[in-house]
């Protein structure tokens, strides 16, 4: 024991009964209360604001919109559902919009997975620490700049006399571009006014959301597993199909949940790029904003929610979450 008064033998805070000490000790003994306090704000946010607004929307979908007075009648009915799926007067028919949106989301998701996998694989397996850092930065950098600016930039890139056309001309690929734009259904006057253009911009904008989860999944596959596979006589392709792909598939599914649901809900890209034909998000925006038909907008918003729920349950069946 030291007799020097400058060096106290015990922590002075243990001798006082300061309120901080009392609270700390109380919370230490009652760890349930401590975790409860920790979760209070996030739970408030999730339950009240997030689930609350979803619930409100669900309720609104059962209201009726009076087309002539523009008033919303707050009584239970299925009118909005009938209108959404069967009304033949609507132009364009909602069913077509849903089909178009789902097809676009699927195409974007598949293309993103195919493009993202090799990059994510390279980052996880071969890139050195510096290269890896540069690639992470490169993948995430677009997320730091304004989404709108990027979309309008793409409009210029894809315009009839834009950079893309110029570039393809230099490469002598104009016939390919013309052939693509001539394809019925996805072509158009120029890239920026075709579904191909919409697809390209979606692909660009959502790519980071595919690369990062796949990369995270691949990082978790121990290198010794690929070694074990080749040790047992498997060539690299066999190892990829039997070991790497199954173990990183949860990452692909996680990424596809992002790209698929973000494409389903986006209304800006199809309104800036493309043929000005409706996608689901734009349709909701119009019904909610311009028309004021809240019940119909609510029903149309529930469509992607239902689609995603089906999607997730299929993914679960496929065992995509087994390795989580």
């Amino acid at each position: 024991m030291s007799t020097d008064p400058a060096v106290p033998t015990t922590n002075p805070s243990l001798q006082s009964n300061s309120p901080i000490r009392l609270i700390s000790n109380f919370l230490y003994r009652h760890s349930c209360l401590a975790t409860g306090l920790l979760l209070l704000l996030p739970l408030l946010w999730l339950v009240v604001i997030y689930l609350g607004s979803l619930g409100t929307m669900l309720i609104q979908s059962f209201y009726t919109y009076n087309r002539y007075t523009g008033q919303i009648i707050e009584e239970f009915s299925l009118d909005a559902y009938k209108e959404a799926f069967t009304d033949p007067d609507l132009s364009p028919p909602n069913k077509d919009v849903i089909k178009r949106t789902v097809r676009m989301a699927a195409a974007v998701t598949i293309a993103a997975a195919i493009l993202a996998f090799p990059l994510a694989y390279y980052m996880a397996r071969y890139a050195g620490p510096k290269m890896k850092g540069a690639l992470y930065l490169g993948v995430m950098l677009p997320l730091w700049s304004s989404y709108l600016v990027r979309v309008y930039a793409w409009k210029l890139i894809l315009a009839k006399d834009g950079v893309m056309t110029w570039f393809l001309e230099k490469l002598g690929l104009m016939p390919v571009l013309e052939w693509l734009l001539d394809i019925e259904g996805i072509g158009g006057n120029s890239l920026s006014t075709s579904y191909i253009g919409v697809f390209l911009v979606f692909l660009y904008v959502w790519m980071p959301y595919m690369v990062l989860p796949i990369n995270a999944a691949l990082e978790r596959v121990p290198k010794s597993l690929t070694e074990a596979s080749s040790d047992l006589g498997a060539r690299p392709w066999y190892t990829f199909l039997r070991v790497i792909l199954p173990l990183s598939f949860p990452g692909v599914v996680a990424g596809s949940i992002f790209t698929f649901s973000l494409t389903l809900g986006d209304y800006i890209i199809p309104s800036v790029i493309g043929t000005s034909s409706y996608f689901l998000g734009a349709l909701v925006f119009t019904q909610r904003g311009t028309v004021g038909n809240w019940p119909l907008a609510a029903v149309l918003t529930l469509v992607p929610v239902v689609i995603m729920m089906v999607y997730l349950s299929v993914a679960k069946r496929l065992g995509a979450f087994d390795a989580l």
Partner: protein
Amino acid sequence: MTVSDPRQVAIRFTDVARHFGNVKAVDHVSLDIYDGEFFSLLGPSGSGKTTCLRMIAGFESPSSGSIQLYGEEVSKMPPYERDVNTVFQDYALFPHMSVQKNIAYGLMVKRVPRKERERRVSEILDMVQLTTLGKRKPSQLSGGQRQRVALARALVNHPRVLLLDEPLGALDLKLRQQMQIELKAIQQRVGITFIYVTHDQEEALTMSDRLAVFNHGKIEQVGTPAEVYERPATSFVASFVGVSNFVESDQAFKITGESKSFTLRPEKIRLTTPDSSTPADCYGLNGTIRDVIYLGMYTRYLVDTEAGIDLTVVVQNLESTSSDVFAARKRPVKILWQKAHNRVVEE
């Protein structure tokens, strides 16, 4: 291979080096491992033993030198074309496959027909005593069971050489000792060359037919366990394999009259009373017991000798109790050992 040695060489390292940047992980190693041997690569971590194993498996290729597998040059051959299999330190079982699928993997790759595949898998499951666990996933097994699956997955392919990378490292002492005996029995039954990497000298001594002691990327000594233990070639081997007293040349001069450093195993030294005489074939030193470490089965004494060196002496607790041995502290003693037990080593 020398002409007089009739044994077939399974693995031959000729002047093999492996550099990682400036680090010489393996520094010009030459080594012959014979067919059917249980051969251990023993050394501390970073001594190059694992790199050597990985070069045999094909996960690393040598920076220079040649590696032959049954006479065939393999140093540039990919792992999937080599007739060797590995039991990994972390077992590396495929987590998405059942035990059976894990074991059948190598046979699937080689397109062995289903009937034969199933027969061989169930046979090997019997051999490693996991008959009933074939349907489980690796995550549902204990460490010891996973270790057996890893062994079965490698052995089912009947490789010419089996490589084991510290396979028992993660198991507890009892299980490890049991597996040591079992591994040795399995090796003798299947007759495959086993190359076993370990940092545990006791394990290497228990199991090996021969072993190579690695240090700083080089081989310090190759020999049978008895040779390596009883006639360590270098002071490193003497200190790494078992426990040794190391006496440097100038102090050695005071004892032997020659300035050659030597090592001396602590169990070879006898403790007697200070007035006892020194037999002609023995060295004797007077001293004081400085410290006593009671270890249950035996006691380790640290003796300050008149020659100015500390020697460790190990005595089995044949009749003495713990209170007896602790009472020995500070007591003057004489230590005696046979001259033949001095091992002159390079420094």
